[in-house]
């Protein structure tokens, strides 16, 4: 069984890595990673906007943002994929490829979840930060931009890394609308071989595990480092520190 698994990897490594590129669309791990990176990078500014709208005192901003977050939290991602899949061509009047459909869904979905992280990060800062910034003469937007957001976003780095892992896992759902990514490539291999489904899907699971586990581990290390830095340098003897 292990021998045949190695054989499958040896015969299909290029398909697993980049799909049918350059003879077809880019696929495989490359497409999964590009899709997830683009998704999280575009979702980030969107999530900051949603988070600020949710914290706003004006109902015009707060209510739509809150509704968006609750809808995304309450409806399965597959449903949102199908909404984008059907509604985008209607709105744009042209057909939209699977990759772009999936990217839009990821931005919407991960953005809404990330906005909750951003909001928690902003609310976790002591209220004195905002008060002090305002007392120094900053307007609310300037205080947000120069004082609150830099601190909140720095503290959130590990959560954003975990959100990226979540995004990589969510790209697998593109399979249902035939986005050429890693899960799709594995299914192509399985459909061609027919007799080795266990080996093929085990390889698929191992690849995802290696990618996601390394990133989860990196998030943990980053979290520890940030916690250490936020705690400040260790002062053993206050008198000695004052003397220096």
């Amino acid at each position, binding site marked *: 069984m292990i021998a045949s698994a190695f054989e499958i990897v040896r015969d299909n490594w290029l398909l697993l890595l980049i799909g049918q590129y350059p003879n077809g669309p880019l696929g495989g791990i490359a497409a999964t990673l590009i899709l997830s990176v683009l998704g999280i990078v575009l979702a980030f500014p969107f999530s900051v906007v949603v988070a600020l709208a949710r914290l706003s005192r004006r109902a015009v901003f707060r209510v739509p943002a809150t509704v968006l977050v*609750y*809808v995304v*939290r*309450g*409806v*399965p*991602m*597959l*449903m949102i994929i*199908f*909404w984008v899949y*059907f509604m985008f061509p209607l709105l744009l009047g042209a057909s939209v490829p699977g990759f772009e459909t999936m990217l839009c869904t990821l931005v919407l979905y991960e953005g809404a979840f990330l906005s909750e992280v951003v909001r928690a990060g902003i609310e976790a800062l002591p209220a004195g930060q905002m008060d002090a910034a305002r007392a120094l003469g900053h307007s609310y937007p300037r205080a947000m931009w120069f004082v609150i957001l830099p601190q909140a976003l720095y503290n959130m780095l590990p959560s954003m890394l975990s959100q990226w*892992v979540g995004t*990589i*896992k*969510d790209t*697998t*759902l593109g*399979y*249902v609308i035939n986005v050429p990514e890693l*899960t799709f490539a*594995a*299914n192509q291999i*399985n459909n061609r071989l027919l007799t080795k*489904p*266990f*080996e*093929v*899907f*085990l390889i*698929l*699971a191992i690849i*995802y*595990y290696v990618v*996601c*586990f390394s990133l*989860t581990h990196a998030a943990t290390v980053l979290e520890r480092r940030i916690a250490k830095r936020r705690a400040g340098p260790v002062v053993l003897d206050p008198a000695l520190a004052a003397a220096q």
Partner: protein
Amino acid sequence: MKGFDLTAILSNPEFSGMLLHGMWMTFVIAVGSWLLAMSLGILLLVVRLLPSRIADGAVAAYISYHRNVPTLVQLMLWYFGIASLLPDDLQAWLGDHNGESIFAIIALGLCQAAYFSEDLRSGLRSIAPGQAEAARALGHGYIGAMRFVLMPQALRNSMPALVNHTVSLFKNSSLAMAIGVVELTQAVRQVDNESFRTFETYLIASVAYLVCSLLIMGGGALLDQHMKAMGRAEP
């Protein structure tokens, strides 16, 4: 393009029947995998508390696998992969008895058990160590201290996380469509194919999902409040 008309779907007995059956399957899969996940999650926690490094490592590996591999891939591995290794008689029996739903419940349940177990563990870890010592000093055995002192507090601490993961389990039940279970999402696609009323069909299903998720969130918040109040009432 036809005008917006919800009744075209809702008052058509065939379409509403398909949607209702889909909702029923979603319910069966969500409840079945929740029960499996919760019992296995508690079992994993108990094994992890044993003073054995092998047991600890095995549970950690289980949790790491289920948290780092996409749920859809786990479903595929069960339905396409592990099913093919079973004896032919069993495969035939599963084919006759809705095998895809059984595999969906197993895969989703095993996956979510990892999350539930971690939720409970972090709830247990956030209790002050003095609680366990005090319970033992009062004459409780290990089981008694767990049952009457530690677990009630751990459960209370982990309620928000458990509710969140229950909602994501409910949402994940839609992934079962990828292995051919006709649950709500798949039923919607079938109704859409037959009725050509994409917007109405998806709207009905999305509202149904949203209402159920909000009910779980609301119910969880109520239960959380109730448990917090109980915790305060006890002297």
